[in-house]
């Protein structure tokens, strides 16, 4: 005899199977509606955890790409600055060679000097190139301009008090020019006030004549008084000196700026003032050589002009070096950019494999489950209908 089957057994079974089929149908429907295989960790714990990892990776690659793009823009700014620097050098050198020619009169040298002065100003403007409001040649002190033109004032007295900023008169000895307008945050005149890189032709001392009464070392910013007239001016308190000078910021301008372009890989993007214009103590720096040239042209000193040409060549080479380093940095960033692009594409694909629904599969699953569900409904309706009662 076969086992006993009761009425509620059948109905329970039918209900249970219906629920099971419907749950599967619902799960597939949720996948199709959201397009995602996993909407919560328990859908696939390993995939969920992987997906978080991929998201983090993607986010990071995107950040790196942003860094690279930012770095490329920065390098582009530097590159165009250096390019125009090269053309300035070329013009200056032409002028220098022209001026060195012995056929030139003092006057014609003076006019060449006026041209050079214009190019000097261009070079100063170039040194203050900014990227997004930050000075590109200031190293990590990007908030300060590396070079700035100042109008200096100095006073020479017979005997100066400490820290007053006045210069003590000593006959026949070079005295450092102290710009009284330069003070630190406590209004104290410090060594930073030593005005170097004085512009030739700009220096005036009341009633005294350059060359006879005094002479000037423009690069080092030193003045030497020679005559009794100078001594008299000092004694009468009228030895006021005014001049223009180029102030190199005393802060450290040599810090490196980096962009992280891959995990733990920082690529340098900046060229410092020393790389481009020469260090603070460099005798053949860009501005030092130009000041020598200005001195030679404005004050008609052919020897100075000739020696400045060497200095100009040295600084031009320095700048070309900086330019080629810059180019190498661009290449490096571009290589990394394409590598990061590859990784982005690859990781996006991995993430999609893990997270996204295979629609063909899901739709065919859905149809199959729908058929099964409908079949079980139909079967249930049939099976529950008939009992012996119907036949009595």
């Amino acid at each position, binding site marked *: 005899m076969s086992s006993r089957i009761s009425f509620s057994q059948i109905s*329970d079974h039918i209900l249970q199977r219906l629920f099971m089929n419907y749950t599967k149908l619902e799960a597939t429907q949720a996948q199709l509606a959201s397009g995602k295989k996993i909407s*919560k*960790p328990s859908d696939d*714990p390993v995939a969920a955890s992987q997906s978080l990892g991929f998201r983090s990776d993607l*986010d990071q690659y*995107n950040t790196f790409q942003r860094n690279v793009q930012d770095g490329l823009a920065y390098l582009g700014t530097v590159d165009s600055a250096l390019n125009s620097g090269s053309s300035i050098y070329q013009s200056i050198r032409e002028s220098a060679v022209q001026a060195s020619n012995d056929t030139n009169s003092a006057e014609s040298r003076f006019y060449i000097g006026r041209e050079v002065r214009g190019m000097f100003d261009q070079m100063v403007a170039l040194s203050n190139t900014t990227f997004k409001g930050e000075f590109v040649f200031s190293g990590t002190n990007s*908030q300060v301009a590396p070079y700035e033109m100042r109008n200096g004032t100095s006073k020479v007295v017979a005997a100066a008090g400490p820290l007053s900023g006045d210069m003590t008169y000593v006959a026949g000895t070079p005295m450092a020019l102290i710009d009284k307008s330069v003070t630190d945050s406590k209004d104290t005149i410090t060594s930073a006030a030593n005005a170097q890189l004085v512009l030739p032709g700009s220096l005036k001392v009341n009633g005294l004549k350059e060359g006879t009464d005094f002479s000037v070392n423009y690069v080092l910013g030193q003045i030497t008084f020679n005559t009794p007239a100078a001594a008299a001016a000092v004694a009468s308190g009228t030895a006021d000196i005014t001049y223009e000078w180029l102030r190199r910021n005393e802060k450290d301008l040599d*810090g490196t700026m*980096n962009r992280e372009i891959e995990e733990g890989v920082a690529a340098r993007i900046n060229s410092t003032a020393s790389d481009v214009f020469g260090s603070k103590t460099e005798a053949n720096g860009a501005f030092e050589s130009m000041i020598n040239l200005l001195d030679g042209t404005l004050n008609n000193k052919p020897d100075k002009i000739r020696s400045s040409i060497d200095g100009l060549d040295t600084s031009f080479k320095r700048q070309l070096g900086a330019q080629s380093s810059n180019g190498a940095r661009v290449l490096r960033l571009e290589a990394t950019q394409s590598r990061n692009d590859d990784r982005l594409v690859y990781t996006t694909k991995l993430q999609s494999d893990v997270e996204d629904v295979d629609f063909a599969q899901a739709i065919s699953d859905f149809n199959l489950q729908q058929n099964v569900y409908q079949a079980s409904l139909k079967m249930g309706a049939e099976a529950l209908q008939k009992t012996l009662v119907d036949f*009595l």
Partner: protein
Amino acid sequence: MGLFDSLNIGMSGLNASQAAIDITGQNISNANTAGYSRKVLNQSADVVRDDARGQRGMGVSVKEIDRIRNSFLDRQTWEQVGEKGYSTEVDNAYTRIENILREPTENGLAAQMNKFWASWQDLANNPADLSSRESVKAAATTMVDTFHNVYKQIEDYGLSMNNPLIEKSKTVNDLTNQIFMLNDKVAGSEITKGQKANDTRDQRDILVRKLSELVDVQTIEDAQGRCIITSGGNQLVGPADVQKLETYGVDKTLSDGTKTSELRLRFAGNYRNFEPRSGDLKGIMDARGQVLTGYMNDLNTLASSMVKQVNDVHILGYNLNQVTGVQFFDGNKLQAGTMQLSGAVQADAKNISAGAGGKIQAVATVLPRPVIPAALTPTLNLTTTDPKFRDLVKGSMKITLLGPGPAFAPAGDLEEGAGKDYVVDNAKGTITFLNYARYAPGTSIDVQFSYNTTGFSGNGNGQNALQIAGLRLKASMSPDTSGTNTQSMNSYYAATIGKLGIEKNQNASRKETKEFLIGQMDSEQNAVSGVSLDEEMTNMIKFENSYKASARFISAVTSMMDVLMSLGR
């Protein structure tokens, strides 16, 4: 032996058939009643006396009505029902945590952490830019808010379990009370009246099953037919009394400082704690005590690691005000529910230290007793643990000996200098110990010193921000108790999410197994005790016919009697 006896035999047949028809009717009526067990008539042939030809039957007698049920299967089912109740409650907790964490999405904690790290990268590119600083602050605030929010929701969910605990313990009390009363009824009819209390037992089984959803249930039937119920090692329903449950509060302080109470269960009579072994109640307790607490702890570990590590790097850097040593997060608030940006950063984004460099004033380290091979000068290299301890500030070194005893090694400050206790190489960051006699076994030393980092190098320096952004990938967390850091914060969180999914699935599959088993057992029980309409209809025809036959028999005997009577006319 006379015709009246025959009438009686016919009569007993009529009675038996009618009783059987009644039972069939009862079975059909209750075909869909939950917990109803089908009944059958237990009848036997009456034997009254022997005579020369052998035993003479005197008709049929109805002994009793039997309940067809497999009570062994019942007990097994109750056990599974309890475990299913447990898994269901735990599953609810996992589902809830999944919904709270919302991973993987664009707004979950993982996404906020990524945004936080990315904001540091952007700051590293533009360290002097105030808007980059504000966006670091905003990303950090959002991340902190997400930590708070997630933690608070889990915490609230834990608290909300107070309510079902009250309701379900009341239900337990109701059920045990009803079972106790039904026990009396069963004993009353079976012992006193000698009748089987079939329907009362059915009712009682239904109640026990309901009870087994809430707590674990072990049953023993005593001699009077009472069902004695034990749960969690304590008797709930005894022969003479019922142990009532009650809830009581335990003080608890939430992450936001609110004081509240967490409810527990105990017996109303003796205040002993009630600890069920399965069922909804155990599920609620475990969900709260283990599942929720576990994930809250994970979040706390992550949060405290985040605060400490970001701060460790941040205080080394310089901010826009050229100040170093400023915390980014509030270093005293290490929990996911309480973590906060430091007051300085909250007040002004300029206080975010993006620039590298800085002097660290006092670092205290407890080093173990220096290992001293004979004749060798023991040198402790501070750089081995952390390369940043170089360029020590001259004269800042202070070394204190901690124990163990005055006789051999008096505790106290060590003296610096050749011929004294130790010398320091400030540039390399090393200490050379000279006076061996002071370092007894078990000695440890406390070292305090200051060291210089590279110093302020301008507002355009974003090295420190870059360092903080680099924490994203730094293996800074330990996945187990080994203490070896092999996971970054991001991967720790990802592993937590993975664990959540796995645990939920394990529990859910346990729940499904239990449901399936219960379904099987119910089906098996149904096969025995369920009503089959076909069978009942067959029985009905059978009993109807036998009733008709008995009536025909009586009418035959009656006509025989008529024949007999006519003889006397």
